């Protein structure tokens, strides 16, 4: 079963940190990514640029409307994500807890919807 771990954190707070602190955090993320890979849990993931580079798009009555910034103005923004394989929610929650930003931000754990391939349905317990 796959879960997406969405990483939310306060970008302004991160920007205010020293270079050394940011590098340490980055190194921690790299170590986590490598270890998830080695454990065979990693299916994908990316870091994302911040709200300043974000555009929200809507189509209304056939016209494309673009607005500067994320869909919702919140203190914590989506800054990246991992796609992981986990046996169940307990394992996915444990993986989420290993993400450095879980300590000062929040990680949203979302099950990935299974596509309708026979045999690919979410297994039951």
């Amino acid at each position, binding site marked *: 079963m796959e879960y997406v771990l969405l990483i939310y954190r306060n970008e302004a707070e991160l920007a205010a940190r020293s270079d050394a602190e940011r590098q340490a955090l980055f190194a921690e993320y790299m170590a986590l990514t490598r270890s998830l890979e080695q454990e065979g849990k990693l299916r994908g993931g990316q870091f994302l640029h911040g709200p300043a580079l974000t555009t929200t798009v809507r189509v209304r009555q056939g016209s494309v409307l673009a607005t500067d910034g994320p869909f919702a103005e919140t203190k914590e923004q989506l800054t990246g994500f991992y796609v992981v394989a986990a*046996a*169940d*929610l*307990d394992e996915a929650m444990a993986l989420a807890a290993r993400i450095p930003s879980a300590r000062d931000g929040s990680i949203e754990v979302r*099950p990935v919807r299974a596509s309708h391939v026979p045999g690919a*349905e*979410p297994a039951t*317990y």
Partner: protein
Amino acid sequence: MDTAFTALYRAEFSRLVAGLTSMLGSLHAAEEVAQEAFEAALQQWPASRWPPSPRAWLIRTARHKALDRVRRRTNFEGKRAELEAMATTLDDPAGLSDEESERLFPDERLKLLFTCCHPALAMEARVALSLRTLCGLTTEEIARAFLVPLPTMAQRLVRAKQKIHTARIPYRVPDEALLPDRVEAVLAVIYLVFNEGYAASSGEERVRAELCDQALRLGRTLCELMPRRRDAQGLLALMLLHDARRAARTGPSGEAILLEHQDRSRWDRARMDEGLRLLESALSGGPPGAYELQAAIAAVHARAAAAAETDWAQIAALYALLARVQPTPVVELNRAVALAMAGALEHGLSIIEALDRSGALERYAALPAAKADLLWRAGRYRPAAAEYRRALSLAASGPERRFLERRLEEALRKADPPC
């Protein structure tokens, strides 16, 4: 359903659901199959002549119904051979004893309890699911107990089961690393059910006895399944000691009666003794947790033959210990009251004043009510009346309001005695 059958349903439903969930891999399907088994019993058992072991009969019938489902649905393919084998062993028309059926159909209620109380579910969903699957309450009964419309409660249950299924909340007893947190979550659900029944935060009835009974049942189940958990024993002891006072807590017109004014001969002694015994066992072998300490406080009240004999100094000391494991403003409020009752009236009042100024308990009727009571004891009736008025503006339930109204009137009379 008659009373005996309802009792059987409440007693056996959870075991059936728990075992069937393992077999079928779905809590929802398990609940449906268990329900069908009871419906079959209702139709097939002649009135007052039940099979020698109703449990074995229900298990056998539920197994067959589960197997029927498996035959109809291909996605249970993996479970099929296993089920067929079990169906044969259970096909003995002479019927099985309770012991034999237990061997073939082990008690998996602990798994069910941990799944229903999983922290990924909203608290209200955990409560509803636990009452439905572990206590065998119907959706209607749960809706009534929580004063929620039936469709709302039904949807709450459906959504919770969907989340369990689709997000894959595991069906197992958590491993050692997770266990302390998860037991804590289970205890919190049980205590919430109890408090909702005992304090009846809304509505006209002071005590919703049904919820207290169900919380006690859940507490007993947990103690039975995890006999070495002292926190589970502490919680059960706490609930028993409170519940023993149930009959004495409400007056003839439904008004609340404070501990101090309760007729102690109406306390349920047997229940109290059970609570005291459990507490003793919970307190042996390690530093006490929050539930054990709260039970110890209730035990001091239980041991006092009359209100005037209450050892308030000991209660204040226990609250000080509780404040260390559970540093909340409510605990601090209770500690202040205990100190005041132990003789340090002004000291207690000053702690309450400080709490009041901090705003931490802004919407909590018990703060002005406690303050009013202490002011009254100090002979300051006019400020006491003002605090009773404030408490009234925050109190929600009918019985609590009636009590406060009565005290307010009395305080006003004492402040301005008619000459």
